[in-house]
C-alpha cells in the first residue's frame, strides 16, 4: 500500500502541473485585459444620458453578474459555433472570463467615476472642453487610480475561476491534475498540489494588491 501522500510522486508530477499553470496564468491575464477594457466601455455606456443606451447596459451588467460563469461559458462554447463564429476553446474561455468580469469591473469604474467631485466636471464644462476631453482628460485620470486595488481583487477572483475552463475542454491546471489522477488512480497528490498552487499564487497576488493600495495612497490617491 502506497503512503497517503506520496512525496516522490508529487515531485514527479510537479513539472507537468507547472506547464499547465502557464495556460492558467495566460488565460487570467488575457481575460483581465478583456475585462478592464470592456468594463470601462460598459461603465461609460451605463452613465450615458440617453436611456436607450444606459438601460440595456445596466441590464447587461446586472444579468452577467447574477448568472453563473459556468453557464455563460457553456453558452459561448455551444452557441457561438451555431452562429458561425469559430474559436478555440481557450479563446472562448478567455472571452467568457473577460465578459463576466467586465460586468464587475464596470461597477468598480462606476464607483471611481462617481467619487470624482462634481466641481471637476463643472470646471471642465466652464473651460468649454468637449464631453470626450472631459472624460479622458479630467474625470478618468482621477477616477481610475483609486480603484486599481479593487480591480486587482477581481484579477485574483478571476484567477480562481480559471478551473472552470476545464469544463469546456481546455487543458489547464485542474484538467491536467484530473488527467494525472485518472491515469495513475492517484488523486490526492495532483489535486492537493493544485489547491496549494492556487493558494500560494492568490495569497501572493492579494499581498501585491495590498502593497499597491498602500503605494497608491502614498502617491497621492487621497482626495
Amino acid at each position, binding site marked *: 500500500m502506497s503512503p*497517503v501522500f506520496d512525496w516522490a510522486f508529487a515531485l514527479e508530477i510537479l513539472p507537468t502541473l507547472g506547464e499547465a499553470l502557464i495556460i492558467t496564468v495566460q488565460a487570467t491575464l488575457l481575460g483581465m485585459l478583456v475585462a478592464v477594457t470592456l468594463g470601462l466601455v460598459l461603465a461609460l455606456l451605463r452613465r450615458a444620458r440617453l436611456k436607450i443606451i444606459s438601460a440595456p447596459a445596466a441590464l447587461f451588467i446586472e*444579468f452577467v*453578474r*447574477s*448568472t*453563473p*460563469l*459556468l*453557464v*455563460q461559458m*457553456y*453558452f459561448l462554447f*455551444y*452557441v457561438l459555433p*451555431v452562429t458561425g463564429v469559430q474559436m478555440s476553446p481557450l479563446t472562448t474561455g478567455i472571452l467568457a472570463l473577460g465578459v463576466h468580469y467586465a460586468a464587475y469591473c464596470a461597477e468598480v469604474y462606476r464607483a471611481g467615476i462617481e467619487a470624482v467631485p462634481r466641481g471637476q466636471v463643472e470646471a471642465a464644462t466652464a473651460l468649454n472642453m468637449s464631453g470626450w476631453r472631459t472624460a479622458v482628460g479630467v474625470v478618468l485620470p482621477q477616477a481610475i487610480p483609486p480603484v486599481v486595488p479593487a480591480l486587482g481583487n477581481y484579477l485574483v477572483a478571476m484567477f*480562481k*475561476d*480559471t*478551473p*472552470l475552463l*476545464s*469544463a469546456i475542454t481546455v487543458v489547464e491546471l*485542474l484538467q491536467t491534475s*484530473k488527467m494525472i*489522477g485518472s491515469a495513475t488512480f492517484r*488523486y*490526492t497528490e495532483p*489535486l*492537493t498540489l*493544485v*489547491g496549494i498552487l*492556487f*493558494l500560494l499564487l*492568490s*495569497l501572493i497576488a*492579494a499581498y501585491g494588491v495590498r502593497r499597491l493600495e498602500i503605494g497608491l495612497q502614498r502617491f497621492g490617491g487621497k482626495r
Partner: protein
Amino acid sequence: MEDYLSLMPALLRGLWVTIGITVGAALLAVPLALAAGLARMSRQPWVSWPAAVYVEVFRGTSALVQLFWFYFVLPLFGLQLPAIAVGVIVLAANAGAYGAEVVRGAVNGVLKGQREAAIALNMTSRQIMQRIVLPQAIPAMLPPAGNIMIELLKNTALVSLITITDLTFRGQLLRSDTLRTTDIFIIVLLLYFAVALLITAGVRLLERRFKTR
C-alpha cells in the same frame, strides 16, 4: 411558445435542486461565517489561528478545486460522502469563509466608543457582543451578505461537474437530447437570473426591517 414549454419540466426539476442546494448551503454558511469571523478576532491564538487558516484556505483556492478535492480525495481517506453532501458542505464552507470577512469588517466597524462605554458600564465581553456590538453590526452585514448569497447561487452551477443534476446539468442533458442549444441556455440563464433577483429582493426586505427597528 409551446416549444419552450416542452423544455420547462426537466429544467424546473433541475431548478429545484439548485434552489435546494443554495438554501441548504446558505443555512450552513451563516453560523459558520459568524463563528469563524468572531473566532478570527479572538485574542487567543489557538482560537484565531484555525479560523484564519480556514478563511484563507477557502478564500485563496478555487471553489471548483475545493469541490473536486472533497469529491475525489476524501474517499481515499475512507470518508465517502454522497455528491450532494459534498456539494452543500463545500459551497457552505466557501461562502462561510467570505462571510467571515464580512462579519469581521462589520464588527470592527462598530464605533470604538460604544465598546468603551460598555466596558465602563462593567458589562461582560459576552454582553458587549450580544447587546451592543452585534445589533449594530448585523444591519451592516446584510448588503455584502446578499452579494455572497448571489455568489453562492452562481457557484451551485459547479456541482453539475460532480454529477449532481442541478439546473446546469439538466440544461446539458437536454442539450444533448434535443440539440436546441441556444433556447436551453437562454432559459437556464434566465432562471438563474430570476432566482438572483429573488435573493436581492429578499435581502432588501431584511434591510428595511432592520432599519425600522
